[in-house]
């Protein structure tokens, strides 16, 4: 690893001004669970490392039943995994965090760092996309907010400007009669996904008819992708075998993965269909009972 100057701003404002001052030469570190690997490999060689891990103002979880959940960017994965509020209202986040890397990584790695790393092979981001989460970015010129799906631009690249910091993740309340589930295929259970899929289904009140659905895939393209074509054909229909088969096929066609040392493109595309089928079959086999806090 090449040497760098280690800077510890005390506020977000100070961090943004340091980023402005050292544009192009500085890198932000949060938990560093991905960044330090890239620095050891000399793929990234910042002259200044700006540490946000100690910014207490970014380490918070807040929730209310109207505005939903707010996650400070420095919240660790482990805090998400073990939060009773998140388990109650956003079960999918607790579920996916259990196998998002090893417990050691979850104890130190942050949600904000994970998002800004821009790894298309992410457990978390497909869930944020189907939940409609917004990301709040703070820069030296002020704040802006965008949908999590619009944040990524390419492999490990995001729309974050050089003086900007991701400060908060805002997750709206799930619509009534909804369920969200994540499924991944990986080598070790806690490895990053070879292929991952997350779906959120909103049922018609008291029926097994799909009122709305969102489907997002990870690790099959340069950025996490929605499968809108499949979502469109599901709305207003009863979720059953033939429809699931069709949706799986569309998702599989949408996937444009690259082969790696373990798995070919073709295999990964087939696994997309398998995951989609597992997810929807799981949801319908549990039926409406699976929905937490259902009000029928």
């Amino acid at each position, binding site marked *: *690893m*090449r*040497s*760098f*100057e*280690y800077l510890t701003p005390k506020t977000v404002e100070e961090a943004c001004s340091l980023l402005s001052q050292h544009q192009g*030469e500085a890198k932000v*570190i949060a938990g*560093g*669970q991905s960044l*330090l*690997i890239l*620095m*050891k490999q000399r793929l990234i060689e910042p*002259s200044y*490392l700006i*540490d946000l*891990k*100690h910014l207490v103002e970014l380490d918070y979880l807040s929730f209310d039943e109207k505005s939903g959940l707010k996650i400070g960017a420095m919240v660790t994965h*482990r805090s998400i995994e073990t939060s009773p509020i998140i388990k109650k209202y956003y079960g999918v986040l607790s579920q996916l965090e*259990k*196998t998002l*890397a*090893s*417990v*050691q*990584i979850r*104890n*130190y790695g942050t949600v904000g760092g994970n998002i800004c790393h821009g790894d298309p092979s992410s457990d978390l981001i497909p869930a944020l996309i189907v939940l409609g989460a917004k990301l709040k970015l703070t820069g030296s010129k002020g704040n802006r907010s965008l949908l999590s799906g619009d944040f990524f631009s390419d492999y490990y690249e995001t729309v974050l400007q050089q003086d900007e910091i991701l400060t908060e993740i805002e997750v709206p309340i799930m619509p009534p009669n909804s369920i969200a589930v994540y499924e991944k295929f990986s080598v*070790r*259970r*806690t490895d990053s996904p070879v292929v991952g899929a997350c779906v959120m289904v909103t049922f018609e009140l008291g029926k097994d008819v799909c009122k709305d659905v969102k489907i997002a895939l990870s690790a099959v393209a340069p950025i996490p992708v929605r499968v809108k074509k499949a979502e469109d054909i599901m709305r207003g229909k009863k979720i059953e075998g033939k429809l699931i088969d069709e949706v799986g096929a569309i998702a599989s066609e949408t996937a444009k993965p690259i082969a790696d040392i373990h798995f070919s493109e073709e295999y990964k595309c087939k696994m997309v269909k398998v995951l989609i089928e597992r997810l929807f079959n799981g949801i319908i086999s549990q039926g409406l009972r699976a929905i937490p806090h259902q009000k029928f």
Partner: protein
Amino acid sequence: LFEDYPLHLRESNMKRGLRLNINGDNFDLLIEPKSTLQEVLRNELKLTGTKRGCNSGSCGACTVLLDGKAVKSCLILAAQVEDKKITTIEGLGKGEFLDPIQEAFIQTGAIQCGFCTPGMILTLKALLNENPEPTEEQVKLAISGNLCRCTGYVKIIDAAIAASERLRE
């Protein structure tokens, strides 16, 4: 290669003062900001119980406890953990008395070459502190970030269950 690199940083020996609390003792050190906690533990403090395996967060051999939570010391800069309580394998047990998890490893025969053992034991220490009665499945998930290349997982899991039973007595 170093043309666009600030002059004052071209020297690799730019060091900073740092106080670390390890196994209850404070250590004042002069280290480079790029030193990982794992490097400081082994190279500066000669606490060689913490192993350097993959050096990229995959193998778990460098696991230590940070305020009681298991972390991988190769993926944390020493500069980031000032004011935190660090526990290494040397800090477990007291004098001649081993920690019940260490004893369970010995009695179960959960060691072959021993390289993964400190990381395994500290990961399980954190698990049992949080969850005194883990199922076999929970133990497996907890150690999924720790590799054992002697394929000794079965006995390690047995040791974890035995230790949890002893700790509950």
